């Protein structure tokens, strides 16, 4: 399980960074979304550890830690919202520049 999660995080992270380093704004926004997903998976994997138990109610080992799930859920929502914002911004930028290439912007070159 740990190996599968690590491979998943690594793969998503690599894909995200590759996209982020590209020139097209939509690919960059999508790369960021992949990075968010990689990090959410990472949060799952570091918080799903046997010594972490539900802090209330005295539930022990076979019960998952609900706090970790709450964290990931919040992080998923934030990541989704932020990606939406970035995509909207990218769309406005593309319409204004009439180009997908972020570096054609005058400011970008400075």
């Amino acid at each position: 399980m740990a190996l599968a999660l690590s491979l998943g995080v690594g793969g998503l992270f690599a894909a995200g960074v590759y996209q982020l380093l590209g020139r097209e704004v939509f690919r960059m926004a999508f790369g960021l979304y992949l990075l968010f997903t990689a990090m959410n998976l990472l949060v799952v994997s570091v918080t799903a550890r046997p010594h972490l138990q539900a802090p209330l109610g005295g539930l022990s080992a076979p019960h998952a830690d609900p706090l970790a799930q709450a964290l990931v859920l919040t992080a998923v929502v934030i990541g989704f919202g932020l990606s939406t914002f970035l995509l909207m911004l990218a769309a406005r930028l593309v319409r204004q520049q009439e180009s997908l290439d972020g570096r054609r912007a005058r400011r970008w070159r400075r």
Partner: protein
Amino acid sequence: MIPALLLAVPLLGVIGNLALPGRSRLRGRLILLVALVSLGLAIAQERTGALTLAVGGWAPPHGIELAADALSRLMLLLNGLIFTAAALELESERHERPMLATLPYALLLFALNGLFLTADAFDFYVFFELVAVSSYLLVTQGQDHPLEAAWKYSAQSAVGSLCLLTGVAFAYGMTGTLHMHDMAMRLPGPLTWAAPFVLLSFLLKSALFPFHLWQPDAYAAATTPGSAILGGILSCVGLYGLLRLGPLFLSPALHLLLQVLGAASILYGGIAAWREQDAKRLLASSSTSQLGFVLLALGWGSVAALAAAILYLVAHALGKALLFLVIGRLSDEAGSTRLADLRGRGQGRIGLQIMGLLGGLSLIGLPPSAGFLAKIALLRAGIELGAWPWVTVAVAGTLMTLGYVIRLYQVVFLPETGAPAPRAIAKSGMAALAIVLVGLGIAGAPWYEACQRAALELRP
């Protein structure tokens, strides 16, 4: 009760902003009202002293706690003050789309108050992200190529926020708690291997070398009150986070790294500001340099150095917000932020000239201003530790500051142009900041003690 009100009032401001009819000009006044109430609450908080509130009645460490310790109270005061000054400026402006132009301010006030109050590491991340998104929105509403600047800023800053989430998750995975104080208790030592994530995130947010690339564009794109908020209070956020969460992650070796990056920021920012041909970008690069001093002092790590770092953070925020308001006012009239277009614009404007001079003096660290006290405390902390190479860098950085402030002042205020008589303008926001700046410089004892108390609370 006060901590809850500090969150509830700005949130009501956000709701009010959305509820007002589309073109209503009341929005600026609403922001001003909310900022004033927030400032009043922060003052009340400072007078009552430490207050904590366990949200929903769940006792910490299981529940979420709002805690106003000395550092939080200081930052809340600073936040209220800078927002009041910026809102006075915002209120006097006309906007094509009033809702979009004013909404980011209400959101930012809420998010920053929350960030400074929370004692819960995950809440800290959530507020950090909320601050970030609101500030992207603030930049998109700017005037000088705002979309490119906002894109650059948000794409880089989003990576930083992600890294903060990762750091917090690692700390939670190791300790099983999210309460910052409880976390520090349960950790056997600093989580050095998770430190790069947290460092990246905080250095990016405060635009320190080598993560400063987004910053001049974003500051130059923002409107006058927007750049005062960005340069004043938002630039503090990363270093505030480092003060709060740093002890969980930073080992002695990393303190050396902080000193190196601090010194690099001081020198790089100084040179960049010296070469800059645009007034707002000059002030932005100067932020990289000035916050480098704070990072340097954080790297020293003694209680005196921490107190000096907090003093410096506050003094820089006040002085930089004041300078952005002054330069912003002049560049709004000139229709350009380029130094060449601003030549002689401030000639004969006694009020603006005095404000600009005070802000500049504080930035350099000369009396009678808050910056003087902060600079002396910082150099003394360094000399006490015998850190001579770093003190030399700090003095060199101060000389560079002197250089670019004189250059800015010379270009904007001195040349005779024979321009038409300036019209009367409201300067109440700038005046408020200038009065506080001088007040802290002349009667700075309570402020100095508050910073010392904050440093002692951070390093028991």
